[in-house]
Each structure stands twice: as structure tokens, then as C-alpha cells.
């Protein structure tokens, strides 16, 4: 391992603390007359002319963020094995295309004939997603996966309404992602948990019992968050449908089977697709994403507006539609993310997309095989694109999953997802980035094995980790106890 000095980087507000006159950007100048705010705006509405924060030169701004960036790990540094999060390589060609001003300067209220290029991209993306999901309808509007869940559940709600039904419950497996129950609640349903069976999949009996005429939908993740494929998905969907419910599929794990299976064949009524997971758009340190939703025939009438339609005169935006659930956000979607995803899909082609999924599954299985002796595996059901170990072996030596995570930082790797899914106590959820070469997978496994050994032999090295990071272990408890969520000037 190498390491490197990095300068402590003060907060922007601590720079030029005396607020000396400086300039960060040369602003455009206006040749016309300057208007005095007092003369055109009500006095009580006006801010005083004290600057709200300092001004510093352009280079100081750039160095500030350069130095901050040095404190971050990123996909470009190597494997980023965050389970469920699907940290993919973000091809640079996506960024190049999204940088074209013909796209990024388009205004969402321009008339359709001025933005045919934009609409074509959206239309083609919808068609591509239909092929990938085998489902007949798409909305591109949702801003992320959770937003897609909401769109799906609201469509289900509306469909039930249209049928004159008022079901109150959404069933959610205990292994589900937190957004699933949160979405159900947000949409006005009661989220009811169903337990997992011993192989990690939904307990069919429990589902059978729970699935009554008050259940609006079942939310299933396929493969689920344990990386296990719900192999009875078709039966489950049939059961749910036969009792008047809908199947919501959390498609965050679609990357496990693109080109090898179709959600449409599984009986999904709605499924969101995280373009920032399966289709390579960058995570951006927390976002933005995009969460298009694919729907079955039954939900087509309820798709959100606006959405793109094609006619002989070209493409058009449909801003209202009788049965639509309406708009769940401003405008028609996070277009620049949609654009990146389409560039990726075209760049991959059908075969490339399939190879990518297969490689994810292959890598996850290799990792499972190599780590199996050293880390405990609660469910030994076959693994798809991610594998969930736990820390029970290490806890014997006083080492917990968080310690393992922090220690991995010293080895120069981003850790797996911790403590999720909740059904595995002390979980370490590993999902490999499929674009790395096998050498990187090997290096990661070696680091994990080395840590397992350390946990046995020198546990204090692990429990006191990280040792080689820009800051040492961060006190998250204190942060919540003594809330400090903005900088306040001394004086």
C-alpha cells in the first residue's frame, strides 16, 4: 500500500474569512442602464447588501474542490462492491454525449417540433426498455428507484380504484429494501412484512395466508437482496393475480439477468429500473438517478404524464391523459440521465448487455467460492449477482462487520454494503463491479481473507481501523447527538 499527504482542507467559509473583495468568476456585463433595486422592488422585500459568504479567486475554488475530491473513493479507483447499489463503470462516451449543448440546453417547455431530437431519444429508450423487460409500457418520469416504486404503486392504486376496490395493504418481504415499505406508506398503504423462508426466498405459505382481498400488491425484488432468485416467481405472481392483487417488482437487481430472462414473463405488473444501477449512469455521490417504470397491459392506462408518443409527424409530448395518475415531478424526466443510459445501451448492444449480466453473476459466485471458508454464509442458495456473508465467525473475536468494512479501507478497497438486508445479522453484502478484470476480484478476495486472518490473530488492528484514511473512524453517534448541520461564523 502506498499513501500520500493531503493538505487539510478548510471549509469554504473559512477561506478569505475577512471577506476581502475578491472575484471568483468574471460575470457577464450589461451595457444597458443599471436599475436600482429600491426603485423597482418593495423595500421590505429587499436583502441588505451584505454578501452572504466570501468571494475567492477561481483557482482557489478549483483547488478547494480538487483537494476535497482527493478525500473520496470512487469507481474509477477500483472495485466498489456495494451490494444492492450496483456500482458500475460509467463509460466516458456517455458523458461526452450528455455534454452536447444540443441536448443539455434544451428547455422542457419548448414546443415539440423544436426538440424532436430529445423526444427521439426518449422514445428509443422506451422501446429499448420494453425489449429488455418484455413489458408493454414505460414511464421515464421517475427521478430514482424509490420514485419509480411510488409511480408503480400509485398506478396500482388507480387501477384498483378503477375497479372500484379499496385495498389497504402492500406485502413486503422482510429482506426488502427500505424504500419498499416506505413507498407503500407514502402512497397511503399499510406495509405488511412477510418472512423469508430458510432458503432466503419468500415463504410461500406465509404469503398464501397474507394474500387476501385487502392486499393491493406484493412488492418483490428479483433476484432478492440476498442475491437469490425467487424461483417460484411465476407461481407467486399467479397467486397474487388470482386474488386480485398486483405484483410490483423492485428492479434494482435487474442487472442480474438482462438478456437472460424477462420480467414480463415473470408476471410483473410494474417494475422500476434504476438506470444508475443496471444501465451505468454515474451515481454522482448520491444522485442523480433515473427510475423508469415498466408496466403490464393492466396498468397502461394509468401511466404518468407527460410522456412521449410517436405519430406520422414525428414525436410529441402527451401532457394529459384521462386515466393517468398525473405528474409525479416537474417535466418529463431526468433527461440527461436517460440520454446517458441510451448511449450505454446502444454502445453495449443486446449481446453486450447479456455478457455484462452474466459476468456479474460469475464474479459474485467466484467471490462466494473464495470467501466461503473465511466468512459465514447464512443462505447457501445459489447466488446471482451478489452474495451476502455475515460476521458471525469474526464476532467470536470481537470483530464486527463495520470493523471489517473500515479495515478494507486500509487495503484500498471500498467495503461491501453493511447490515443490509436486515434478515442477515451483521451482513456483508458484496456485489462486484462487472467491468473490472479478474485480477481486481482476486485482489479484493485476498484483502478480505487477510482481514479474516487479522480478525483471528490481531483483532485490535481490525477493530481500530481505519488507520490510513483521511480521517480516522468517524463518530456518527456524536453527529446525531450534537447536531451541527451548517457552518456558523465565529463572530
Amino acid at each position, binding site marked *: 500500500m502506498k499513501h500520500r499527504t493531503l493538505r487539510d482542507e478548510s*471549509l469554504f467559509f473559512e477561506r478569505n474569512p475577512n*471577506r476581502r*473583495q475578491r*472575484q*471568483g468568476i468574471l460575470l457577464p456585463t450589461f451595457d444597458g442602464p443599471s*436599475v436600482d433595486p429600491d426603485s423597482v*422592488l418593495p423595500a*421590505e*422585500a429587499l436583502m441588505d447588501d451584505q*454578501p452572504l459568504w*466570501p*468571494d*475567492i479567486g477561481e483557482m482557489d475554488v*478549483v483547488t478547494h474542490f480538487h483537494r476535497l*475530491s*482527493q*478525500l473520496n*473513493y*470512487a469507481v*474509477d479507483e477500483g472495485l466498489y462492491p*456495494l451490494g444492492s447499489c450496483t456500482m458500475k463503470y460509467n463509460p466516458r462516451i456517455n458523458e461526452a454525449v450528455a455534454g452536447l449543448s444540443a*441536448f*443539455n*440546453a434544451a*428547455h*422542457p417547455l419548448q414546443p415539440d417540433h423544436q426538440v424532436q431530437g430529445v423526444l427521439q431519444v426518449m422514445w428509443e429508450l422506451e422501446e429499448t426498455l420494453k425489449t429488455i423487460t418484455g413489458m408493454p409500457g414505460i414511464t421515464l418520469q421517475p427521478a430514482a428507484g424509490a*420514485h419509480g416504486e411510488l409511480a408503480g404503486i400509485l398506478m396500482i392504486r388507480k387501477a384498483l380504484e378503477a375497479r372500484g376496490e379499496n385495498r389497504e395493504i402492500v406485502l413486503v418481504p422482510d429482506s426488502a429494501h*427500505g*424504500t419498499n415499505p*416506505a413507498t407503500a406508506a407514502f402512497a397511503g398503504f399499510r*406495509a405488511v412484512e412477510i418472512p423469508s423462508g430458510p432458503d432466503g426466498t419468500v415463504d410461500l405459505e406465509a404469503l398464501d395466508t397474507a394474500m387476501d382481498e385487502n392486499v393491493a400488491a406484493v412488492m418483490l425484488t428479483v433476484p432478492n437482496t440476498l442475491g437469490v432468485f425467487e*424461483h417460484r*416467481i*411465476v407461481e407467486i405472481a399467479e397467486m397474487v393475480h388470482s386474488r386480485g392483487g398486483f405484483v410490483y417488482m423492485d428492479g434494482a437487481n435487474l442487472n442480474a439477468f438482462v438478456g437472460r430472462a424477462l420480467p414480463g*414473463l415473470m408476471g410483473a405488473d410494474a417494475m422500476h429500473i434504476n438506470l*444508475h444501477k443496471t444501465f451505468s449512469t*454515474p451515481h*454522482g455521490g*448520491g444522485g*442523480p438517478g433515473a427510475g423508469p417504470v415498466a408496466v403490464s397491459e393492466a396498468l397502461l392506462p394509468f401511466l*404518468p404524464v407527460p410522456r412521449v408518443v410517436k405519430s406520422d409527424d414525428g414525436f410529441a409530448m402527451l401532457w394529459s391523459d384521462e386515466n393517468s395518475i398525473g405528474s*409525479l415531478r*416537474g*417535466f418529463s424526466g*431526468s*433527461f440527461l440521465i436517460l440520454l446517458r443510459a441510451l448511449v450505454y445501451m*446502444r454502445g453495449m448492444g443486446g*449481446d*453486450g448487455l447479456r*455478457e455484462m449480466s452474466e*459476468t456479474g453473476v460469475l464474479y459474485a459466485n467466484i467471490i462466494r467460492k473464495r470467501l466461503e471458508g473465511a466468512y459465514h454464509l447464512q443462505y447457501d442458495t445459489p447466488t446471482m449477482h451478489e452474495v451476502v456473508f455475515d460476521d458471525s465467525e469474526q464476532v467470536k473475536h470481537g470483530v464486527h462487520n463495520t470493523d471489517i*468494512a473500515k479495515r478494507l479501507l486500509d487495503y484500498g478497497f471500498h467495503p461491501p454494503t453493511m447490515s443490509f438486508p436486515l434478515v442477515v445479522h451483521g451482513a456483508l453484502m458484496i456485489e462486484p463491479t462487472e*467491468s473490472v478484470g479478474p485480477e481486481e476480484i482476486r485482489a479484493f478476495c485476498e484483502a478480505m481473507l487477510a482481514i479474516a486472518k487479522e480478525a483471528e490473530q490481531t483483532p485490535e488492528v481490525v477493530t481500530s481501523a481505519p488507520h490510513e484514511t483521511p480521517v480516522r*473512524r*468517524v463518530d456518527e453517534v456524536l*453527529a446525531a447527538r450534537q*447536531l*451541527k*448541520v*451548517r457552518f456558523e461564523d465565529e463572530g
Partner: protein
Amino acid sequence: MHPWVGAGPQDRRNLLDELGLETIDQLLARLPEAVRIDRLDLPPAQDETALRRAFFDIGLNNTTAARTPSFLGAGVYNHIRPAAVDAVLSRAEFFTSYTPYQPEISQGTLQALFEFQTLMTRLTGMEVSNASLYDGATALVEAALFAFRVLRTKRSRVVLAETVHPIYRSVLDAYAEPTGLEIVTVPAGPDGRLDLKALEAAVNGDTCCVAVQSPNFLGVVENLGAVSHAAHGVGALAVHVVTEALSMALLKAGGHFDFDVVCGEAQSFGVAPGYGGPHLGFFTCREKTIRQMPGRLCGETVDSEGDRAFCLTLSTREQHIRRAKATSNICTNQGLMALAATVWLEAVGGAGLRRLAQDNLSRAHELARRLVDENSGWRLAFPDSPFFNEFLIRGPVGGSEAARKAEQAGVLAGVPVIRWNERWPDGLLIAVTENNPVTDFDALIGALGSAS
């Protein structure tokens, strides 16, 4: 194997050997026959040369503000986006990283978020800010739900100014029924401002919040003090929605008028119009209500050696901990856009921001003056109402027709507002920014003149 896949065919063979398998299919054996396919019916992979050509050509079918004088605003503004901001955003350390759940190797993102939160509180005059929401429209929805939670009573009435962006209002409508909110809209007066009398009449003991936009959708500056007074009078929360965030450099935001929430859209701060997204929703409120706030929050703390450090905090409000009881279901947010705004606001600077707002004010008022003076037939829809950088004009023809004719003259003239509301004058909403040089003014005036 495709270059974006890390392992080649021989690697695949070797790895399968290590697993004791013959084929990838064996790994996928759990997939039921009934759901399987062998391949996707999609075109073959395109190389970069082909991709660049194809998307360049597709882009030719767009006409945008990049090459055409544009006065389009209505919630999405064409402000400067300095090259230095782009350069920071293209640092892989920022754009290819995940949500900073591991603070020890995410201090860059975290400190930037902390700075974002600080900037937003200073702009809005509020005490706390979250780390972003999807966009301005969903921020308004979150504000209404927040008000409902904060009051802990069953007050479900949301009193909404008619002059709130019509798209925001329709988004709120879509959420209202399932979330159990009832939306009551208060009309604007003939001066384009919220009718305060009507507001007094609309609020009642069942009201959880009053939401007003200022500058409003028609560009007019509202009387914020009166609104918060009315809201608080019935024990409701006051929500200030902002769509042109730059206005807050010159015009006091809700924080200065005792509002409980200031939220909205900060696309103006370095985020591309991008046909509507990704944009940047923001949400600020009072410290005492922080536990009801939706979205992520970054806090200051120390590391094990006592040095300053940052981490995400109060995550017990969030879905990944609180699940069905979370304050919102939001997970992925608009992190990179919050970073864009942070870089942009720091680069523009405190004094610079004020100058920029002043510049917009001057340009807009000068254009308004010239439109009226030089174009007989076109006039301000609300000549006596104060505005910042956007205003509604009326003329001899309707807004849509005027825009169509102006387009032929090579100008994107503004947004016709008639599509949303028959009650509003059938005019054009004109937004002016620092990116509109005087030559744009000439072009618009010429174009509207010939459209008369």
C-alpha cells in the same frame, strides 16, 4: 466480450473451471424455464465513432438556447455555467462515487454537502437544509407532507396560491389523493399577486400549510409577510416555494418572514436545463422541525482522533433505517447537482451573487421598458407589480402565436402561459438572464414587432 465487461472469454472459461462448471447457464439454473430468453432483440453494439455521429445528428433536430436567443424561463433558467464548475463535476472522485455511507473515504462529498447546506440556509434565511430532493415540484410535495407531520394533528388542508408554478400544482395534485391531502387554491388578483383577502378566507383550523411562490409563476414578487401571518394565524405552517433561486440574493426569502419551510428548485445554480432534469430540489426548515425533514442530511462531528469530520446524520428519519415510518421514501437524491450548486455559488461568490442578481434585475427591467416603449401593442400584463428577472407581457396576438412567429425570426421568445390557465392573460412569460446580451433584446423586440 464487450470492452465494458472486465473479463474476456478465456477469463470466463477459467473462472467457470474454478467453480467446476461448464457453462454460464449452469450458474443461472434457478431461473425458471418460463421466464428465460436467450438473447435480446436489440441492434449490435455501436462503437464510439458511430455513437458520436448518431447522437450529434439526433441533436441537430433540437433548437436550443445554446445557439438561439432565448427568453424561456418559467422555472428553468439559462444562467452561466462556468467551465470551472464542469471541471469539478467531471472529477471521477465526485461523479463516480456512491452516497457517502462510508465517511472515512467520502469526506470530499460530505464536506461539499455541508457547505451546500450552509449556503442554502444563508440564502433562504432558514436554519437547516437537507442535502437535496428530486426537484422543485417534489420539494413542494414534501413540504406539504412535512407540515402534516409537524403539526401531528389531522389537519390535511393545503392552501396553495394559484400563482405557484402550474406544473408544481399538478404534481401536488397527483400526490394529494393517496397521501390524504386536500388542496385548496387561492386565486391571484388582477395585479398577478395572490389575493390576500381570498387567502384569509381559505385558511382555517384544518389547514396544515399555506404555500406561496415568490417571485411567482408570473414573475411577480409576492407579499411574503402577509402570507406567513395568515398561515400562522390559524396555526398552519408557511411554505415559501422558489423556482428562480437567484432571486434570493436580492429578495428576502421566507426565512426572513418567519416562514417554516423555504423549498424549491435551485437549477439556476449551475445545473443545465437539460429538457427538465436532472435538476435540484432543495428543502430548508427550522431546527426544531429537523426530525421531520425529508431527505439526507450531513452533519459535523469528529473522528476517533478528535479531528473535524463529516458524516450523514439523523438517518433514523430515512427509509433504510425507519422503513415504513420514514419521513420520505427518497433514497438516491440529486447529490451531484447539489455539488454543482455548491461549486457554482462559491465560484460566483457572496458579493458576486448579489451583483449577478442585480444584473438580472437591470436586464429584465430594461427589456421590459424597451418592449413597452419600442413595440406599440406589447405591454406588461401587471404594470404595477414588482418583478425580478421574469415578467408576463400581452400584445396584439396571443402568446402562442407570438412565440411561433418569433421562432421564425430566430428567437425563442418566452413561454405562452395560456396552456395552464384560462384565467391568466394570454401572454408570453419572458425570462431574462445574464446570458441575454443586448443583441438578444433587439432580436426579441424585432421578432415581437413583426408578430404584431
